């Protein structure tokens, strides 16, 4: 029995190995309550704010109607994104907090495969949830005030922007999770980079502080979501900033996971 068993350790093609690990990560994600809470929080914020916006504009005689709903609802991603980042981030950190990383690496000893699957599933889930919930938010606004229009072209643009912002932020969260291994630490870091520092730094009125703020992921996200005009920033620069932060965090997370002992 042992002879046949030890004769050949089966090689599994990498795509199949990744697919299996992703399936396992998917099960991991939805068999803990935290994920559902984060998803619920994002849904409440987006659908709730969408409904409120619709009701408000219906009651406002100054609003002539015929305005597209999209510009309004993408702004709601600004608060809601943190719940989605939390979802992605805890998908990574909860194993380190509970010791579940030990069996996880026992079952998937190739750490690159584990990182790819874990980050991939977390980011894809957060992104898909973001897009679906923004769509739901727009429909809620439209239902509350049917004069608000839902132009398809603009809608696709808006959903694309939301997908980009949420995917980059979720990847940042996952990367920081792998790097810091602590839920609280990674959450604080995400809040600082995405919310606090981009707001606070420009207040000093110092040129360098403002430049630093513009290079933070929160500024890029705000630029894209608010669709406003800011001196010194463009769509291209915002996208670059977001992707660079996401890639950088994942790289640092990979360095820690691949090099260190795990417990």
């Amino acid at each position: 029995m042992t002879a046949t068993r030890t004769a050949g350790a089966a090689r599994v093609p990498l795509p199949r190995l990744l697919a299996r690990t992703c399936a396992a990560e998917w099960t991991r994600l939805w068999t803990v309550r935290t994920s559902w809470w984060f998803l619920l929080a994002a849904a409440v914020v987006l659908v709730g704010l969408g409904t409120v916006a619709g009701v408000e504009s219906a009651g406002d005689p100054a609003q002539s109607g015929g305005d597209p709903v999209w510009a309004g609802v993408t702004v709601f991603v600004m608060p809601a994104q943190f719940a989605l980042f939390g979802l992605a981030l805890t998908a990574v950190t909860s194993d380190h907090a509970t010791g579940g990383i030990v069996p996880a690496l026992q079952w998937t000893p190739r750490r690159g495969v584990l990182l790819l699957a874990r980050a991939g599933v977390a980011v894809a889930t957060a992104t898909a949830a973001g897009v679906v919930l923004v769509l739901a938010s727009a429909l809620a606004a439209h239902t509350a005030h049917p004069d608000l229009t839902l132009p398809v072209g603009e809608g696709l643009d808006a959903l694309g922007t939301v997908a980009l912002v949420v995917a980059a932020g979720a990847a940042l969260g996952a990367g920081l999770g792998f790097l810091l291994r602590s839920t609280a630490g990674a959450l604080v870091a995400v809040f600082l980079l995405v919310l606090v520092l981009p707001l606070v730094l420009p207040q000093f009125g110092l040129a360098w502080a403002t430049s630093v703020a513009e290079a933070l992921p929160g500024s890029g996200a705000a630029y894209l979501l608010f669709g406003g005009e800011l001196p010194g920033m463009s769509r291209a620069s915002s996208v670059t900033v977001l992707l660079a932060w996401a890639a950088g965090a994942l790289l640092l997370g990979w360095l820690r996971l691949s090099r260190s002992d795990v417990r």
Partner: protein
Amino acid sequence: MIAVRGLTKRYGTVLAVDDLTFDVEPGKVTGFLGPNGAGKSTTMRAVLGLDRPTAGTALVNGRPYAALDEPLREVGALLDPGAVHPGRTGRAHLRIAARTNGLPLRRVDEVVEQAGLGAAARRRIGGYSLGMRQRLGIAAALLGDPGVLLFDEPVNGLDLDGVRWIRGLLRRLADEGRTVLVSSHLLSEVEQTAERLVVVGRGRLVADTTTEELLRGLGGRRVRVRCVRPDLLAPALRRRGATVEEVGDAELQVQGLSAEDVGEVADSVRVPLHHLSDVQQSLEEAYLALTAGSVEFAGQDPVPTGADR
């Protein structure tokens, strides 16, 4: 088959494992013994690729664990049973394990049954007792029907029934031809199940031998006996070749005879016994004896002595 070669692991200033070399062979239970902090868990973690060795290698079936695509089909391991996400049910935990290694989900039900987890498998792990977590860890280790099994202190926290169950399981797994390595800090815990013993102390190999030999090296098994007439019994035992030592009021410690022999001798001189028992030798004692130079292993190089016996 597990092959550890020159394994060294340093945590900062702590040398947890120091140039350790030994093999674990199939078809037997091998006990991995050493006092607290001797480096047993560290060695197992290195075998499983969780800790990176500072030097040396640890191979399973000739390959590093981290290179295995489907490790559960080759190696099952129980480390810290508490290292699991408490929010999942036992079944969800096992289902994830099965997914990662491409194992059929019916194996989950089979190992739940085998590990005696029963209805608890549908409850959250956070509510499990230590014994149930132990069983869950064992279920996960058995999931892929592996040929190599590692258990780190599996009887820790188990009740008598659980201990007996683990002992039977270990024996059965070895009898099926599997390689079984089980760690403990108490010799008494593994001496009935393990045929071979790898003993470590302060990260170094102290002995690699059979259980019989180790006990003999310690001066054989000892028996304690209490009776009303030790003055009669002691000479009778000595006539049978035993070494007898008075250890207390009307109590003797006998070396060189089994408890059965002592009982017969007592009967032959018509001394009623009040107490008769085997002395449990703790590994701490064995370890001290082995390193104190008071037994035959003293002065031997810490190299595997088992292969040529």
